[in-house]
Every structure is written in C-alpha cells, then in structure tokens.
C-alpha cells in the first residue's frame, strides 16, 4: 500500500475512516447531520431505513458528494482527492447504469486501464476478479443483457478489481441468490480478516448481524448509535436485556429467578423448554444465576444454555429506530 501523500500528519487518522462534524444538505433536504465517526478495520455495517443517510454517508466517504460542512478522510486521504483515494478504495454503488456497449470484461479492463495499469496487468487483474465473482461465463457478454444479480456482481468486481484496502459496498447482496450471497459474505470476511476496511449498507438485518464486527445505526440523517452490537445493546437502558435460558423444569427456575432482585419479568418459553427473562442488570443477574447453581438451590434443574436474546442487530435496530422498512 502506498503512503498517503496528503495525510494531515496524524498517524491515528491514517488507520481510520474519519468523519468530523460532517453534514450534507441537498438544498434544503437533509442528507446527514453532524456525523462524527472513526471507523476501524473489519466489517462495519450501516443500518437504517430508506432515506436515513446510508448512501449519503458512503458517497461522502468516496467523494462522490461533498460535505456541506465538516471533514472526511479515509486512512489519511481526503475524500476530494480521487487520484489517491481510489487507489486504496473500491466502491460498489447502487447506481445500476454502466458505460454503454461494454461487456463485463471490457468494463473491468477499462476501469483498470483508467487506473493507469498497463494492458497486460489490466487483463490479468480483470480475469482474476471475474473469477472471484463467478462471472467467467458471462464475461464476454454485453452488460446490458445481464440479470440483476450479474450486474450486482460486476459492480462488486469493479470495487474489488484493484485489491483495495477499503471496500465500500452499498447494498452489495441485493439481487444475489442465496449461494452467491454466502460466497460474497465469505469474500467480505476474508477481506476483513486481512485487515481491510469493509463498509456495508444493508436492509437485511440478519445478514448484517452475521457478518458485522461493528454497526452504525442511522435514522433521519443522524447517527443513532455506533460500535460493536453487544456494546450498543448494553448502552440501551430503557429496554431491559432479555436472556434465554434453556433448561429442564423451566417453571421452577422461573419461580426461583423471580425471587432475585435483578429480574424484572420472566416468561416460560413457548416450547416449555426454557425461560425468557428480562433484567436491567445483566451482570448482576448472571452472578445471581451462578450463585443459584453453586449453592445447589436449583433443585435438580439442568441448565443447558444461557444466551442473550436481544443483543442482535434486529433488536438494537427496533429499540433505537423502530421496525420500519427492514427485512428480518
């Protein structure tokens, strides 16, 4: 990777994607407002309903739109310096239009030539990327004849073609069949494991939940929460933490747990093989549960598993934003 030539000299900023008091207005319409972010390596998901500002945030990150106020830097590169920025960044947009008359191969080859690579290197890199996104059979066909999923894959290929350090992917799994989805998710994970920054926006919360190292929740142009999902969940005080305990004799356990001060509410699970508890102090509750088990007060109750029931993205999303326009 090349050294940022326009870096501000702050080494901390050089390994982060930084938004500093960034606002973007489209005329009088708010895109995003007062965004402050510092995104580390790994997979970061942008989650929010339509119009919440996910794409605006990605466009700001990649210099396709300019902030009305504030500063955006990607690993020390300014977003309005495409020559250096796109040498380390690949962006798969939601724009479903391509230069006319190009085949999938020509699209990637032209992009790599445009990046300044010689013909031979561009050809090799184009074919390698086409293989990565499983488009070899369709590579010589005009993009105009591609299906939605194929167009999605060729857009991903454009983002991946030059092995960028930062991948910005706007709804990258849209239009892909389940097999292609799992292949792409594996690809994103592999990139993140190699230290890449993978920024993904998605409506599909269970996929976000599975792949994200951290999330940024957006609503109406504001960042509602950011960080690791469990941490974000822990900070939501108004909704008690839900814990699912799989056990034998759930009714007896429920009765015992109601005696504990940390427990707010206990429900027997529908299948009668566990209890769902609500508590405002998860740590205190776990301690009490341990005591119960150690002191032998369980009266023969076998606990099979204990797991938080609402520290996933879906729950966090519903608590903070509501359940509008999301796919579970």
């Amino acid at each position: 990777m090349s050294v940022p030539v326009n870096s501000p000299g702050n080494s901390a900023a050089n390994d982060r994607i930084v938004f500093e008091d960034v606002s973007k207005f489209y005329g009088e319409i708010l895109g995003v407002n007062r965004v402050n972010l510092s995104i580390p390596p790994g997979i970061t998901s942008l989650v929010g309903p339509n119009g919440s500002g996910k794409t605006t945030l990605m466009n700001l990150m990649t210099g396709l739109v300019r902030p009305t106020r504030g500063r955006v830097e990607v690993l020390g590169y300014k977003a309005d310096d495409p020559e250096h920025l796109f040498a380390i960044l690949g962006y798969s947009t939601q724009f479903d239009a391509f230069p006319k008359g190009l085949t999938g191969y020509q699209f990637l080859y032209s992009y790599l030539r445009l990046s300044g690579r010689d013909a031979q290197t561009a050809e090799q890199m184009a074919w390698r990327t086409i293989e990565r996104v499983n488009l070899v059979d369709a590579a010589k066909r005009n993009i105009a004849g591609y299906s939605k999923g194929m167009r999605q894959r060729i857009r991903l290929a454009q983002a991946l073609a030059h092995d960028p350090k930062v991948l910005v992917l706007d709804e990258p799994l849209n239009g892909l069949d389940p097999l292609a989805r799992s292949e792409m998710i594996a690809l994103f994970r592999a990139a993140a494991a190699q230290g890449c920054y993978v920024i993904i926006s998605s409506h599909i919360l269970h996929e976000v939940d599975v792949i994200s190292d951290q999330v940024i929740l957006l609503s109406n142009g504001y960042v509602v929460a950011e960080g690791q999902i469990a941490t974000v969940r822990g900070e939501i005080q108004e909704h008690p933490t839900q814990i699912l305990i799989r056990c034998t004799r759930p009714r007896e356990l429920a009765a015992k747990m109601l005696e504990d001060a940390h427990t707010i509410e206990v429900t027997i699970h529908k299948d009668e093989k566990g209890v769902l508890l609500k508590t405002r102090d998860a740590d205190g509750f776990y301690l009490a549960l341990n005591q119960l088990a150690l002191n032998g007060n369980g009266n023969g109750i076998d606990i099979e598993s204990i797991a938080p029931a609402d520290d996933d993205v879906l729950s966090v999303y519903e608590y903070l934003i509501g359940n509008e326009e999301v796919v579970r």
Partner: protein
Amino acid sequence: MTIAITSGKARIWLAQIKAVIRLEMRKTFFAKRGLWIYLVAALPVFLFIAFAVATSGRQHQRAGIARRGEKMLTYLDLLAVKPGMTRQDVLAILGKPPVTFHWQENRTGELVSHESYGYSDGQNDLNVGLADGKVESVNIENGYNPGQDAIMFAGVFQFFFLRLAIFFGCLGIFMNLFRGEILDRSLHFYFLAPVRREVLMVGKFLAGLLATCTIFVASELLQTAAFLWHFSPSAREVYLYHNHGLEHAAVYVGVTILACVGYGAFFLVAGMLFRNPILPAAAILIWEAINPFLPGILKQFSVIYYLKSLCPVEIPSPPGTPPLLALLISNTDPVSAPVAVVGIVIVALIALYASSLQVRRMEINYTTE
C-alpha cells in the same frame, strides 16, 4: 527525485488520458444520438457534389455544342462578336450556329423577327440575340470561373460549415461528454477510478476534439474534392498550384481544427454548468452572431472573431447590401494569423480552466438532474 516522480505521474496521466479517449471514442463515433452530426457534416459535401454534377452536365452540353458547330471556336472568337453587327458578320466569324431559336414579336404594329444563336468553345457559352438581322445582345457565360467558385466555397464554409455545422456538431459532442453521462447515470464509472478529475476532463476534451476533427476535417476534405471534381485536370492544376487552391484547402482544414478547439472548449464548460443545453447554445450562437457589432474588447472573447480573420478568401458584399448585413459578411476588423491562432488557443484555455474548476466541484446526484 522530484523530476522522476513528476515524469512517473505524467506517464500515468498520459496512460489515463489514453484510456479515457479509447472509451469516449467508442461512444462518440457510434452513438445513435450523434448520427445527426454526420448528416450536418455531410450536407456541404452533398451540396458540392450536386454542384459538380450540375456543372459537369453543363460542360457535356457545351462540348456537344462545340462539336456540332461549323468551326472549332476559341474564347477570342466568342469575344469578337459585338452588338450592332449583322447576321452575316456573326456567321463569318463563328460560322453556322449549332443552336438557334426564332420567334417574332409585334412591336407597336410592326413585326420584329428575333433570333438567338448559341455557340460554345467547349468551355464557355456565347448567346447572341439578333433582332431583324442585327446583334442586339451578347452574353458570354464562362464555364470555369475559379475565382467565383472559390468565393462560393468560402461562403458555404463561413456561413454554413463554420457557424452552423461545426458549431452544432461541437455542441452535440462536447456538451454530452459530461452531461450525456449524467443523463445516462453512468458518470460515476469515471469518478470511481483513481483519476484526477482534471485528467479526466482533459481526456474527454481530447476525445471530443479527435472526434469532431475527424468528422469535420474529413467533411472539409471531401468538400474540396467535390468542389474540384468538375474542374478539368488542367484547370484543377492551375487552381491548386498556381491559384493558391492547395494553400486555401490547408488553411480551411486548419480553421476547421481551430473551430473545433474553440467551440469544443466553450461547450465542454457549458455542458458542466447548465442542465439544459439549449439555453447556453442559444446564448453562444447569439454572442457569435452579434460579434461584428460588439466593442473591440468584447469581440476578443469570441471564436468566430478569430476564425473569420483566418479564412483565406474574403467574401465581398454584393452591391446594394444593407450596411448591417454588409457588416456581418465582411470582416472589418481582422487580426493577423498568429494573433488569431493564439487568441483562439487563449479563449479555449480560459474555457478549459473554468471546466477544470467545475469538474472538481461536480457531485454525483442523478436524482436532481
């Protein structure tokens, strides 16, 4: 070290400009929306082909008349006939006419016998009108008049090719370099590549220039070929090598290229600044048209001001032309060729500088377009 970095960067920029040109040429030459540009460029070629066909037909007629005549005539023979001569005088000089017409006219109760004799030396026509056996009118129609033809060519070049064909051709190509891709929603393809926006702009401008120059220089050369088609080989040689014909053709090609540079730069920046191309196009067209009436300082910010000065043939105003129209036709305030070339280049550079500022500010926001 600095030089090495600079030359390395320059090499990458050059490679990127070539890549942009390759992509743009494909779109520019084969775009359906650009077909009308070929038609506009071809119109003067069709005009000169039609003119050459008509002139060649007339020359075949002249040759036929000359063959049918009693004598092989020369141009001097044709000039020898004067009004007032008798029929016998005419027949003595030119022989029996190959083409004759007779009719009678009643002039205040008296019948007048009219005759019309047609002669030709193979290249020029002579029509002699006789009334009651005396020459009343003599009319010579020259077959080859390179001077007159050159003025006609200059008129077509200045008033159609330069001001309309190249103008609108450049509008169609350069305005669409960025605007067309915004409308197609595909401009982000370029903006996602590690290319300086200014390098992209230069690449697109050069692609537009290459396309317009190819189309309009080819048209210009075809026009010249069509224009020379009806000339006999000897007349062609005289026109080309002794009458500055070749030099004029080269200058017209040069003016065509400079017109593409000037108008191209104007329309490139207009395409970035305005969503609707009709308004800036109309404004630039009016600005170019009123150029002769503008104060000297404002004239200099026009492309046609410099191009007119470079055109090799001055078009004379016909007698009786209204002064305002005469001002449009003639070039009352010409500048020297070097000043004209430098002037166009400076005007184009100013427009390109404005484009480079604009391209850096451009955002991808298709929904507002």
